[in-house]
């Protein structure tokens, strides 16, 4: 289809994206937006540097390839470059959602569903409500100068609910969200929103100030998911290790990095937010066992990082849209389920904290989780709701402090946020997991 100039590796990614957004603010319709946009991202590599271009005029792709080639220096040995040798070649068309596309769901049905959620927020403690429905149907097509041509589709729909609540001096924000592949499944999630609203109302009415300090912390599936993503997931993205001997030594495969009960997985084949049939440079999505029985067994790669570290690509080169180059990102990342019933874990905690839901998290050498609903655990029982600003821990120590992992397990997909890495935010990712007990975290 395209004339790829000699002496370069070139790939072209075209994204055709259909989106819907219907939003209600405090019960009034704020927005009903349906959009279709198309754009392309071109990468050209001369063996030394990458040259990128993002454009919306698909007729100009060939010209832009030629322009990038003029900026670069042709390399007669480009095919022998380790990156180029490692790129997978596939010819595939994986269009899965044509017959049950979110595009075909009437706008009125989408409106009606989110209105039902907005109308649930009637309690007097709920002062502001932003309820929105969003969907995204994306068809991606990738061509490479090695001969790959893959075309595939993805779709998600979801409802997000932000509430600002006030009761006396307690003022707080809460969020609830669910994402699904099919609209009919999303319609089944309404009871989830009813439960979340009731929990938030009870929380704002009863939450009390809390004295910070070090406590055992039990995290629910959502908090476990964020903890996994922030405390460890970002460290497994191997672009941080390229050209960095200290990081390579710190994260040597085979090293014990956590308790033997700990297994962490990144899986691009799980349907949902993190679904990657092919990543954004055409590598097939894979299931990667990052930690196995507490031992570091793998990490997340693009082709460039895999070649640099002499490992194998894992299908984790992702970008937020056609305006950006793919970089190493997570897909659906989770702690695998354990074998202990949740009730037995709670019984072991004499004076601790249960984090049910969270506002946000961050991950560096110190990771953070900002709870939206947290509760005391006293003498083996979850008791009083408490106001906590943030929970922190040291990444290098915390995985060794995971004392229990529940057999209860839930993978979650959301709308209204995502993962941020440098300039690229938000990227949809999946997470969740079991209930996880960490022996000691700093509660602030």
């Amino acid at each position, binding site marked *: 289809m395209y004339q790829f100039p000699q002496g370069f590796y070139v790939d072209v990614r075209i994204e055709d994206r259909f989106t819907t957004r219907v939003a209600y603010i405090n019960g009034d319709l704020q927005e009903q*937006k349906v959009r*279709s946009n198309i754009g392309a991202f071109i990468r050209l590599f001369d063996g030394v540097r990458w040259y990128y*271009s993002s454009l919306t005029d698909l007729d100009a792709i060939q010209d832009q390839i030629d322009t990038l080639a003029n900026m670069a220096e042709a390399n007669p040995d480009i095919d022998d470059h380790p990156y180029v040798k490692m790129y997978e070649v596939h010819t595939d068309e994986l269009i899965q959602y044509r017959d049950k596309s979110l595009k075909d769901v009437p706008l009125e049905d989408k409106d009606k569903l989110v209105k039902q959620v907005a109308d649930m927020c009637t309690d007097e403690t709920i002062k502001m409500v932003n309820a929105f429905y969003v969907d995204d149907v994306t068809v991606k097509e990738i061509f490479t100068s090695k001969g790959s041509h893959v075309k595939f589709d993805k779709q998600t729909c979801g409802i997000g609910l932000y509430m*600002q609540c006030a009761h006396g001096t307690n003022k707080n924000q809460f969020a609830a969200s669910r994402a699904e592949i099919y609209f009919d499944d999303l319609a089944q999630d309404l009871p989830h929103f009813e439960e979340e609203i009731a929990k938030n109302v009870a929380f704002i009415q009863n939450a009390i*100030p809390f004295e910070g300090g070090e406590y055992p912390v039990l995290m629910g599936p959502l908090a476990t998911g964020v903890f996994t993503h922030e405390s460890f997931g970002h460290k497994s993205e191997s672009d941080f290790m390229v*050209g960095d001997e*200290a990081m390579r030594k710190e994260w040597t495969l085979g090293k014990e990095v956590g308790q033997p009960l700990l297994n962490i997985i990144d899986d691009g084949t799980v349907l949902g937010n993190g679904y990657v049939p092919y990543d954004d440079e055409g590598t097939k999505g894979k299931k990667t066992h990052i930690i196995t029985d507490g031992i570091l067994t793998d990490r997340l790669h693009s082709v460039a990082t895999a070649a640099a570290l002499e490992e194998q690509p894992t299908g984790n080169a992702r970008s937020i849209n056609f305006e950006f180059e793919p970089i190493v990102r997570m897909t659906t990342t989770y702690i695998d389920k354990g074998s202990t019933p949740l009730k037995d874990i709670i019984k072991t905690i004499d004076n601790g904290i249960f984090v049910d839901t969270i506002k946000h998290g*961050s991950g560096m050498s*110190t990771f*953070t989780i900002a709870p939206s609903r947290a509760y005391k655990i006293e003498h083996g029982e979850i008791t009083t709701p408490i106001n906590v600003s943030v929970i922190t821990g040291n990444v290098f120590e915390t995985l060794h402090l995971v004392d229990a992992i529940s057999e209860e397990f839930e993978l979650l997909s959301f709308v209204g946020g995502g993962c941020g890495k440098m300039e690229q935010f938000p990227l949809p990712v999946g997470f969740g997991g079991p209930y996880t007990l960490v022996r000691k975290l700093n509660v602030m």
Partner: protein
Amino acid sequence: MNKEYIRIKRKETSVKLQASAINSIRIKDIVRNAVRVYKDDKLGIAGAIGSTSIADLEQQAETNLAANIPYPYPIEANHKDHRDYRETKYTEQDIMTMTETLLNELNKEYDDFIYSESLQAVTIDYTMTNTAGLDLRYQDEYVNLGFVVKAKQSANLFDTFISWSGRKLDLPRLTTFAKQQLKAERNLVDLPEGDKVPVFFADLSTVGGYLVRQLNGETYGNKASLFDGKLGEKLFHDKLNVVQDDDPKTSFTRFFDAEGVTKENDRVPLITDGVLTNVFTDKKNAAKFDLPHTGSASGGYDDVPRVQMVAARPLVDSKDIAKTLNGKPAIFVMVSAGGDFTAEGHYATPVQAAYLFDGKQFIGKLPNFNMNNSIYKMLGEDYIGTFQADHLYFSDDYYVLGCYMNVKSE
């Protein structure tokens, strides 16, 4: 029926580093168009990325009127204001050369660090016009430099940042300042003694973001703000002044809001001499809650305008940080990510990168620590001041806010 047209042309050139070497150059040239139609107190909107037929968008916007999105407010009319803030034109080669020059200098003297991320030049041309005679245009060009710095021996993902933003980069000056910062980065020092320490913030996004959320007129009108019912009351330090800043010279944003509203001197006072004087509003919430209209609607190019966030800044109220500190050691926080506020307005955060600071320069690198305080104290009895700090070359026009914080080692 009135029609309104928004066109945003944004060009970016980004040079990216990996492992202390230039890895890529990226060129983006993206146009976004939106059309709004106003009819019978209703609003319809359509938008698209790329070269699009305006006639098609007009048709789609008219179709969108069927959604019945209410807009019973007069639109802006008969106002022309074109402003061009471009000072320096940076070519792709300029950006590449500047990156190479700075990188070579740093690699020469400070090769015990690894540098990554980017230098980016952004050109923006934003127009908003309508059939009632509104004709606004904002043009600008600026540079964002953000190098992630990591010590080669460190197991952290990063240890600090070298950053700069503005319209005219003085590269030799930035190089000198970056080297001073890296010299301090090498010098590991202990936290200053005492539980309560003067702290200066390189980045006010968490604290400022929280404050702005409480000053949102919709939040305030719905009684969900921490400052509920306190409009007109003195809540903070006498010398504290906070404004909504829509002056492109300092905010690097357009001078009109999403409803095309401009304001006197491009600023709106929010806190004046410690008194809560205004919450910020769009047309809808000003009318709904009988609040002054401050021209603060925001949203994406093809969104229904809505009051959400604004660019707010404290005004400079103090001079000479070193003299104010009077020999007392202070902390300059480079990165404090992940913190948050409780329901009562109490802020707590880990600090991932900070320097010991004497008011003039960075003395040494501090270990990670935690800090906390309430918003009322940070901007009240524990407020030190907001200082013009051009000796810290982080931007064209750099100011820094200081207050006492409760500090605790990790």
